[in-house]
């Protein structure tokens, strides 16, 4: 099994993802977007960064690069796909997930640790947690405010497609613990399948014990459970 971490021009969390996955003994390699998706890929990471300088909108250019057609096809076949930060923006721009991540309410780049409440524990990305568990991971983004039509958000919530919400250390959500003004504190959502997920916070930056909390490991273990057929 090899997970493909797709490197676009301007990706900068690709190596972080590679090291984090290696720490968890998950085989992964960085794939340059022009080389196309390897046929035998067992998972896809859309890493963080500033692909194409965030021109037009964050993620807009990368979402329309040819390799994303391969990624959408793989996702439809059940290959697990995880978009992190800029990868989450790319995921939404490419239609893998619904909604949009746009300018923070503060209009500033925000780099800080946040708490997330795990909304569902029955997905590959959250199987390592309990429902309602609070995890600590960092964010680093200027365009992370989750925006979507109110009615559609209600439908997604009914369908259980919200995976993580920003919260305080006790798991309480609300405007005071919403770092970017996301609707209903949404930090991460699922696509049509549970095997497709995007989130603005960085689980790969909360995986190596040397750099702080390791609460993000469980998210990356989503690739592990898929490979072992769980």
């Amino acid at each position: 099994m090899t997970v493909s971490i797709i490197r676009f021009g301007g990706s900068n969390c690709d190596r972080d993802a590679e090291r984090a996955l290696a720490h968890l003994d998950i085989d992964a390699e960085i794939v340059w977007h022009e080389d196309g998706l390897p046929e035998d890929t067992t998972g896809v990471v859309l890493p963080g960064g500033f692909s194409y300088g965030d021109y037009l909108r964050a993620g807009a250019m990368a979402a329309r690069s040819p390799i994303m057609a391969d990624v959408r096809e793989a996702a439809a076949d059940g290959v697990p796909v995880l978009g992190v930060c800029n990868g989450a923006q790319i995921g939404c721009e490419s239609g893998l997930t619904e909604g949009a991540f746009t300018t923070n309410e503060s209009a500033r780049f925000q780099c800080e640790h946040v708490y997330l409440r795990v909304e569902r524990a029955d997905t590959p990305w959250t199987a390592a947690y309990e429902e309602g568990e609070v995890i600590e991971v960092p964010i680093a983004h200027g365009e992370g405010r989750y925006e979507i039509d109110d009615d559609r958000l209600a439908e997604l919530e009914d369908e259980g497609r919200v995976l993580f919400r920003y919260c305080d250390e006790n798991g309480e959500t609300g405007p005071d613990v919403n770092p970017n003004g996301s609707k209903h504190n949404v930090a991460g959502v699922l696509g049509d399948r549970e095997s497709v997920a995007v989130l603005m916070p960085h689980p790969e930056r909360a995986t190596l014990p040397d750099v702080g909390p390791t609460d993000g490991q469980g998210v990356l273990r989503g690739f592990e459970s898929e490979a072992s057929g769980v």
Partner: protein
Amino acid sequence: MTAYTATVTVRLKRGVLDPEAETTKQALERLGFELEELRSADRFEVDLEADSADDARERADEMAERLLANPTIHDYDVEVAER
């Protein structure tokens, strides 16, 4: 074929928060201007050759649909003029 300029204006849908516009508004107020509200938009001027104005408009529409605008948060309009 005729030379046209299709002007595509992309703006946030009504009700979608625009923090950059809000920051700009506050900066204008600090300069002493009085204003009620400020909205920002992106404008793309696309020069193209087309058989007719309708053809030019149709192509610019598709550009907006497929890249220039994000339908989740944006509305857009297209104006076509001969160049």
